């Protein structure tokens, strides 16, 4: 159990590092990102192989609940659960299945805690994911925003608050109920913690303000870093849980675009390397993306090709 908690925390921290490395001066450092991706892989393996099928990460209340699985392989989470990750068996079941539709982040089933937030976030992320690869980052940002706005009804604070709500049992659930997002294309559960986690550490509240704004560019990402770091100072819990999932997806997405657009060279190569680490380690990831992509048909081909 502790291993799972620890592994999860490490996963989220690692993702945050990968995210931050993109805005670091001097370009992406291949060595550091390779090491981070190795840690990510180990943590993920530990996480998935931890034989506690029905238990979820205990939240601060420390009460691990065993929610009844609503669907085979469906992740369920009690209110106090941190991430509401799907149990390993379900995760494993989820991965080979090209049908993650019934699967959704457990948070979305957290009764009465606005669990839809993370779903919306993840959905937004999922939407962003296919959207990302096709075009330049700026355009992709726009696409990120639009689906997210669509899913969330154009409100801010979707992404960061979602995971936060889940994590803190006493945390006030965000007001927004994202039913459409829930019914939308939920990203597969296994990638969710990664996305949320990374966004939590690195993205922070990035992207929270005005998701419907014009396509974000790098300066904005930089400026988003400040609020996120400020947030982290105030609440160490948040630094891991909160985050803009779409931001993280934009990371992966822009790496996809890099892969597809440029021949490997320099910074792009480094992105490849860093992304290929976790990606290569999770071939199932791509399978899981497919159902997400189904809803976003224009980009599905590209991702599948990748």
């Amino acid at each position: 159990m502790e291993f799972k908690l620890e592994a999860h925390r490490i996963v989220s921290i690692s993702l945050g590092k990968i995210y931050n490395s993109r805005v670091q001066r001097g370009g992406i450092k291949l060595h550091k990102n390779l090491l981070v991706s190795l840690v990510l892989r180990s943590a993920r393996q530990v996480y998935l192989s931890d034989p506690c099928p029905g238990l979820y990460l205990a939240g601060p209340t420390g009460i691990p609940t065993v929610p009844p699985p609503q669907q085979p392989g469906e992740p369920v989470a009690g209110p106090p659960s941190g991430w509401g990750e799907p149990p390993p068996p379900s995760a494993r079941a989820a991965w080979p299945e090209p049908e993650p539709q019934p699967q959704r982040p457990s948070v979305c089933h957290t009764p009465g805690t606005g669990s839809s937030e993370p779903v919306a976030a993840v959905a937004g992320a999922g939407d962003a994911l296919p959207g990302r690869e096709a075009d330049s980052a700026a355009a992709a940002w726009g696409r990120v925003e639009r689906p997210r706005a669509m899913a969330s009804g154009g409100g801010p604070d979707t992404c960061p608050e979602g995971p936060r709500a889940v994590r803190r049992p006493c945390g006030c659930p965000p007001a927004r109920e994202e039913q459409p997002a829930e019914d939308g294309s939920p990203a597969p559960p296994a990638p969710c913690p990664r996305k949320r986690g990374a966004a939590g550490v690195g993205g922070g509240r990035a992207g929270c303000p005005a998701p419907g704004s014009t396509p974000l560019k790098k300066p904005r990402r930089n400026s988003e870093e400040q609020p996120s770091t400020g947030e982290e100072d105030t609440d160490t819990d948040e630094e891991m849980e909160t985050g803009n999932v779409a931001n993280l997806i934009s990371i992966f997405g822009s790496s996809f675009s890099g892969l597809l657009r440029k021949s490997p060279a320099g910074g792009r190569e480094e992105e490849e390397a860093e992304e290929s680490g976790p990606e290569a380690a999770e071939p199932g990831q791509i399978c899981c993306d497919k159902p997400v992509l189904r809803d976003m048909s224009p980009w599905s081909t590209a991702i599948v090709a990748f």
Partner: protein
Amino acid sequence: MVLAWLPVASAHPHRGRHWSSRSQICVIVNTALTLWSTEGSTVKTTAIEEVVNSRMTRTLTEIDSQEESSGHSLLLQSCRCSSQEFCPADIISTVEFNYSGDLLATGDKGGRVVIFQREQENKGRTHSRGEYNVYSTFQSHEPEFDYLKSLEIEEKINKIRWLPQQNAAHFLLSTNDKTIKLWKISERDKRAEGYNLKDEDGRLRDPFRITALRVPILKPMDLMVEASPRRIFANAHTYHINSISVNSDHETYLSADDLRINLWHLEITDRSFNIVDIKPANMEELTEVITAAEFHPHQCNVLVYSSSKGTIRLCDMRSSALCDRHAKFFEEPEDPSSRSFFSEIISSISDVKFSHSGRYMMTRDYLSVKVWDLNMEGRPVETHQVHEYLRSKLCSLYENDCIFDKFECCWNGSDSAIMTGSYNNFFRMFDRNTRRDVTLEASRENSKPRACLKPRKVCTGGKRKKDEISVDSLDFNKKILHTAWHPMESIIAVAATNNLYIFQDKIN
């Protein structure tokens, strides 16, 4: 092993440096706005202004100081950074003695190189050893922007390597992430006077006014040290350069980045040969990168490179043009009991150094230093724990990024001792013969002149004795990554963030 170390000199955080326009006086201004100036080879300090609040604001002011009696005017510029105790551009990123040990070069994050020279021993004072004074300062690299990849190229000096001295001038190689430069540092202490075509002010004389010819005569002048770039080796590395190493033939050198090692000739800048390439055809299969590389000190065909997986490969350039197949492979089997999430990170080798004899090599990973015999590939002959007490703290060190710190290591002149840095401004020395080790601290409080450094101890658990420091009170922002040992004498240079400390053994 020398156990008693005395501070010789320390350079304090400097805010700005400026070369006087006329006389090449190097001006270093520290946080208290004290002017350090060098004339010739002496350092004199002149307090210009005491700033109570040393946190300088972001005003960029140019202060014209009064004319020095020698007629040099100096310009001071305050540093642009604010609300920090020191400017991050002043963080020292490399330290290197030259072959004779008379010169010590440091590179910093701002792309500057500062060279210290050892004062000639005064015959009258037999018991005073030479002190190191600033000899030359120059801006080696500037920040660049790669427009094609939209990447900024940092100007931080990653490595400096001296070339063996062949004439009166000194040559060194300095590199940032992408470009290597060969610098010539030369002295000028004579000036020609009596030109025919130029006035004393340098203005061209009207040719019609010249009625007589005279031979210019050389007159002595104040010593001026000039640094000029002689070669620029660029555009050969896709990834970040982490090492350079001059070959024992003194004609070639290697530069290593994350995936490739290139061989250069010092005279030829438009060509380099790729001798090692570990880039996989599919980047998704990337599992390890090159972390350090070095030429053998005597055999000009042998080089080693270390990897992020904790392995070292020795290559012989005679075997093939592309040395992808190693001649020797050094790896210690991993201890399965100590496996953790971070086993891979802490096994990544951050530095590899040949011994002066060429028989051994030393590698530094995160927690230990290992000495390898080149003839035994299966395991190291010695393993020294640097800060084993950090093994239980790896997770928090991963969070604050300290686990990625790349510590360097160095041999002493006789290969009997090795030194490496740690946190809290501690550095460790290991005597290979007596198997003794000592932990010392480089800090201003401990660096009173003629006061020996006290050995420090980190309390790992249980009751903390007096004078011990507990692991939790270590300052992980104060790290000593770069150290250098004089090639022949017992003098060490330790870089603690933005301060340079030089210690020498106690004179009995």
